[in-house]
């Protein structure tokens, strides 16, 4: 160890130097404060002994200068003093001295103190080294996480959120947070929205999110309803997540054909639907256990259905929003949140911006510690861009195929099974038609729903015209399905290629076992069908014909490679 000593008294200095060299230390000797500082900077000693009273620069000043130069190294300073008064001794410590020794020098005490500081210094150096190692390791880990995050983002946060009617905020906390925000469209242009909040943060939460996103996007693009999707997600999570880890979630399906929202919610705080000039008109309550808790056979999939009006706004958020803390520890809470959303009573208010501002003002935080995820989805008059944005692999133009199949669905199937996504899968086999999946699915969905609701179940669509009638309709449908014992829906699909255009014609026939109806009522004078759904079908198809007293409908959908 290298020790710097400074003492203006020659005999003192000689004796001190000798004591220290005999102990085996390397000694650098200065005669005053100035020299002490100079020698310190030149030789970087491990320990400094400073006489308090020296000419040119005394020990106190020298100590201050030396402390400035040490950085994060520990270099103890021991004052050498014959001053006895307490205030003088205290002053030594005030200026950064770590200890003091009184003169005349006692060899034993001096040695003991130096050894003690030596041990302390070793410990300090060890800690510093470990800290540097940990720092390095931490930097590596963060870098790896950042790479993984890009991967994760590609899967879990891909596209779809940057639409004009969506405003959202994803929690910036930690590189991976357990929050999921997913929006996708089915082939028939229904919108699925999911907000998920895994327990905990970090890597485990993020890894759980990957299969969820995969299932959500995959099944939505195939036209499955949220009922099937949420069942499948729960099944997967209950398989892969350890006990105690789960995902609180709300999923909504927005159906533009009949202006309805279906929702399933487990574990998240209430979502809200707000209407212009009215404020909050409805809550989306958590009626279920979070995803991943219940085994598949115990899982309950009761959904809620409501009607919406154009420009209604749907709000979903994670509990971090309610728990956002003010500096005094109190939480933002449900009441404040509701009062901001209720300001939509004035339709010109920008609720989303007001909400963000309200929380920011309340917490007075910088953005980095905000830990909440939120989405505002405005249910506007959607521009029906029916070609779903899905990546198809580039395939060579194959020879167009000729095929035909018949499906016959009986009551037990109709009760619990949505056959359309599977029917749609067939189309994937026919390259070329794949590009028209959206349109075909819309046609199929509309015709099938009519066949089921009005044909087999005999429900009156006029019921849906009012808000209460709407709810009654769907209850009535559920009851009717439960009681259904006889009946069927047959779907026939036949595809004939057109060798000239390289495309083809898809002939869809749907028959049902109901009582039929007078379809001439539907046709207006110019032979077109009223009723939004049927008008849409007619616009998509080359032809549409009812027969057999309204129990059978035939449409021809033709296409070519464009």
């Amino acid at each position, binding site marked *: 160890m290298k020790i710097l000593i400074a003492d203006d008294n020659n*005999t*003192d200095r*000689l004796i001190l130097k*000798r004591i220290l060299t*005999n102990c085996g230390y390397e000694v650098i000797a200065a005669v005053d404060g100035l020299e002490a500082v100079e020698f310190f900077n030149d030789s970087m000693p491990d320990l400094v002994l400073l006489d308090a009273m020296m000419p040119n620069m005394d020990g106190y000043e020298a100590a201050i200068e030396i402390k400035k130069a040490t950085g994060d190294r520990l270099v103890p300073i021991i004052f050498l003093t014959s001053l006895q008064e307490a205030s003088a001794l205290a002053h030594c410590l005030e200026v950064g001295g770590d200890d003091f020794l009184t*003169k005349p*020098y006692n*060899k034993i005490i001096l040695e003991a103190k130096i050894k003690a500081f030596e041990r302390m210094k070793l410990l300090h150096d060890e800690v510093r080294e470990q800290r540097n190692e940990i720092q390095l390791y931490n930097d590596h880990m963060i870098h790896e996480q950042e790479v993984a995050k890009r991967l994760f983002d590609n899967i879990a946060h891909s596209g779809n959120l940057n639409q004009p009617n969506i405003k959202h905020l994803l929690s910036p906390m930690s590189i991976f947070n357990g929050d999921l925000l997913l929006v996708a469209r089915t082939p028939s242009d229904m919108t699925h929205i999911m907000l998920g909040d895994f327990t905990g943060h970090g890597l485990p939460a993020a890894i759980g999110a990957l299969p969820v996103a995969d299932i959500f996007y995959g099944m939505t693009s195939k036209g499955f309803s949220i009922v099937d999707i949420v069942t499948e997600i729960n099944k997967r999570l209950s398989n892969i997540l350890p006990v105690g880890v789960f995902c609180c979630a709300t999923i909504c399906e927005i159906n533009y054909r009949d202006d309805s929202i279906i929702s399933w919610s487990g574990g998240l705080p209430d979502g809200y639907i707000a209407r212009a000039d009215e404020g909050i008109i409805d809550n989306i309550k958590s009626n279920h256990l979070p995803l991943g808790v219940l085994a598949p056979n115990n899982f309950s999939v009761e959904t809620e259905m409501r009607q919406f009006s154009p420009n209604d706004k749907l709000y979903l958020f994670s509990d971090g929003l309610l728990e956002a803390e003010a500096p005094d520890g109190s939480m933002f809470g449900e009441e404040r949140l509701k009062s901001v959303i209720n300001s939509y009573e004035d339709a010109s208010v920008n609720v989303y911006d007001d909400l963000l501002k309200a929380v920011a003002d309340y917490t007075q935080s910088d953005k980095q510690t905000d830990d909440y995820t939120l989405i505002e989805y405005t249910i506007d008059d959607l521009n029906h861009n029916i070609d779903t944005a899905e990546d198809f692999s580039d395939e060579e133009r194959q020879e167009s195929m000729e095929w035909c199949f018949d499906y016959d669905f009986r009551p037990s199937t109709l009760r619990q099974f949505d056959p359309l996504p599977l029917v749609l899968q067939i189309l994937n086999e026919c390259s070329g038609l794949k590009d028209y999946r959206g349109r075909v699915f819309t046609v199929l969905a509309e015709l099938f729903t009519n066949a089921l609701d009005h044909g087999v179940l005999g429900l009156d669509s006029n019921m849906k015209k009012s808000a209460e009638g709407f709810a009654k309709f769907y209850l009535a449908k559920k009851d009717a399905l439960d009681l259904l014992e006889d009946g069927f829906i047959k779907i026939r699909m036949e595809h004939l290629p057109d060798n000239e255009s390289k495309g083809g014609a898809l002939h869809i026939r749907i028959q049902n076992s109901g009582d039929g109806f007078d379809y001439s009522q539907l046709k207006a004078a110019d032979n077109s069908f009223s009723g939004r759904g049927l008008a849409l079908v007619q616009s998509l198809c080359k032809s549409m014909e009812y027969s057999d007293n309204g129990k059978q409908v035939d449409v021809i959908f033709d296409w070519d490679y464009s």
Partner: protein
Amino acid sequence: MEDSINMPIVEELKQLMEEDFPLLIETYVNDCDARIDALALAISNQDATEVREIAHAFKGSSSNLGAEKLTSICFRLETMGREGELANANDEYINMKSEYLKVREYFKNLL
């Protein structure tokens, strides 16, 4: 010399300094020769601060070398200087000078 010098301390010093013992003695003698004159000047100038500082340094060195009687006299002069009471300083100085010469003689003979 036993009432002037603490022999065991001198012995210890000899063992500590080994071949540098003479250097130590010479340093002491040179420093104190200068100090004794400076002290006389300070007292004649009635400079209490100066008296205190010189006496303090003198005391320190002397105590290191075990010259205990000399150390006590220095302490008394240091106190006079600190309190600004130099009335008896001259008398004390005479004691000090005489004791110092004794000690000086003793150490020089050790070399």
